[in-house]
C-alpha cells in the first residue's frame, strides 16, 4: 500500500472540507478499500476516515416509521439494532462477510462502492430506500449506476440511509463458496402498494430490479407466481463460478424462495 496522509474529522462539515482537497478519498470501514489499496489498485494522497463522526452512527426510527441508519454504521450494529424494526434488513446485514468484517464494514461504504456482488445494494434498491448525502437526497432507483458506479459526486458523503419498512421481506443469498460473496442475492419487499425485487451478484450492470417478478408477486405473493416466469434477461455475469444461464436461473429460484420465506 502506498502511503498517504490520514485524517479523522469529527463532523460531517470537517469531512467534506477534508475531501475537498486534491486526491482525497473517504474511508468507511475499509473492508474493501484497504485490500484494494494493498493491491495498489487504488491510492490516495489523503485518506479521510468517516469513523469518528458521531452524527453518522446508529440506527433509529423516524416519525414516518422509516428505519434510519447513519452512513458510518457497521453491519453488526444494523444486524443487532434493526432487528426489532425491520427483521429482513437486519438478517441481510447479519450475513454480509464474516463476523469480524461486519464489525468494521459500514453501510455507507458498501453502498458507495456498489460492488456488483455486495448485499446492501439489494437492500437499498429492494426497499426503495433514500440515500442522504451532505448535499441532497437520492432515491435508490437513481443511485446505482452500474458496477462500482453511483450517482455520488467527488467528495460527496453518504450520511444516512432511510428505509421504508415493508409488510414482509426476505433476502436469499446463494454464496460463492470460496469468497462467500453473493453469486446471486435477491431481496424481496412486500409493501401495501406492491412488491419490489432487487437482484445482486448476477448482472454485469450491478444490482437491478426484476420488474416481471415484481408484477407477478404484486398480484400473487407466493413462490408459485415466480415459477411461471422466464428467467430474467439482461447482461448476466458469466465466469468460472457460473454461466450467465446458471445465474439467470438462480435469480428465479432465489426470488421464489424469498417470496416463500418472507415474513
Amino acid at each position, binding site marked *: 500500500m*502506498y*502511503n*498517504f496522509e*490520514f485524517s479523522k474529522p469529527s463532523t460531517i462539515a470537517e469531512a467534506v472540507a477534508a475531501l475537498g482537497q486534491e486526491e482525497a478519498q473517504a474511508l468507511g470501514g475499509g473492508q474493501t478499500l*484497504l485490500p484494494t489499496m494493498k493491491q495498489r489498485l487504488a491510492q490516495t494522497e489523503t485518506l479521510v476516515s468517516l469513523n469518528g463522526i458521531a452524527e453518522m452512527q446508529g440506527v433509529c426510527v423516524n416519525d414516518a416509521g422509516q428505519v434510519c441508519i447513519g452512513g458510518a454504521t457497521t453491519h453488526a450494529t444494523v444486524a443487532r439494532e434493526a432487528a426489532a424494526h425491520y427483521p429482513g434488513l437486519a438478517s441481510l446485514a447479519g450475513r454480509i462477510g464474516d*463476523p*469480524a*468484517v461486519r*464489525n*468494521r464494514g459500514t453501510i455507507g461504504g458498501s453502498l458507495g462502492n456498489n460492488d456488483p456482488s455486495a448485499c446492501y445494494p439489494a437492500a437499498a434498491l429492494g426497499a426503495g430506500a433514500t440515500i442522504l448525502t451532505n448535499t441532497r437526497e437520492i432515491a435508490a432507483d437513481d443511485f446505482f449506476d452500474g458496477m462500482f458506479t453511483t450517482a455520488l459526486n467527488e467528495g460527496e458523503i453518504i450520511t444516512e440511509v432511510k428505509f421504508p419498512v415493508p409488510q414482509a421481506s426476505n433476502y436469499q443469498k446463494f454464496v460463492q463458496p470460496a469468497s462467500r460473496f453473493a453469486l446471486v442475492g435477491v431481496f424481496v419487499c412486500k409493501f401495501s402498494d406492491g412488491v419490489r425485487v432487487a437482484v445482486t451478484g448476477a448482472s454485469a450492470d450491478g444490482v437491478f430490479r426484476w420488474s416481471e417478478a415484481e408484477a407477478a408477486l404484486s398480484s400473487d405473493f407466493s413462490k408459485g407466481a415466480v415459477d411461471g416466469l422466464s428467467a430474467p434477461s439482461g447482461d448476466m455475469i458469466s465466469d468460472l463460478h457460473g454461466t450467465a444461464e446458471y445465474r439467470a436461473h438462480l435469480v428465479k429460484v432465489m426470488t421464489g424462495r424469498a417470496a416463500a420465506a418472507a415474513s
Partner: protein
Amino acid sequence: MTQVSMTVNGRAVSGDVEGRTLLSEFLREGQRMTGTHVGCDTSQCGACVVHVNGEAVKSCTALALDLEGAEVKTIEGMANADGSLGVIQQAFQDHHGLQCGFCTPGMVMSAAALLKDNPKPSEQEVREYLEGNICRCTGYHNIVKAIMAASGQDVSAIAAE
C-alpha cells in the same frame, strides 16, 4: 509519522506510525507482540483477529491511526494472571484444536468474541461464527469441539476425528 496511542491488553501503549500502518503491523512490529499472526493479509483468513473495543476485528484490515484511543485485546492478553492458559486456550489444548498453530490466535480471539455474546452456542452457531477464520490443518472439527467445551457444554457426544 504520527503518534498513535491505544490500550493493548490493559496497558497504555503509543508509537509513531505512518498513515498506512495497519493495526497488525503496529502490534507485531511496533509493539513486538507477534502472537497476532498475519496469514493472507487480505482479510480472508482471520489469523490476525483481535478485539477492538470488545469486538472481533481483522487487524490486517484496520489502520492503526483509525483506532486512536481504542481498547485492544490480543492473544497475549488471553492467559490467566498467573500465566496459565485461559479457559479457551486450555480447551484448544485439551481437545487438540490445533495442529500447526498458525490460525490459533485468530481462532481463540474469534471464539472469545462468540462466547461473550452467546455463552452456550450450538455446534452450528460455532461453525457459522468461524466463517472468517480459515484453518488448513484440522478440518475444524476439534476447533469446534474445543469451543463447545470452553463454553462448558458436554462434548463427549462429539466424536474425535
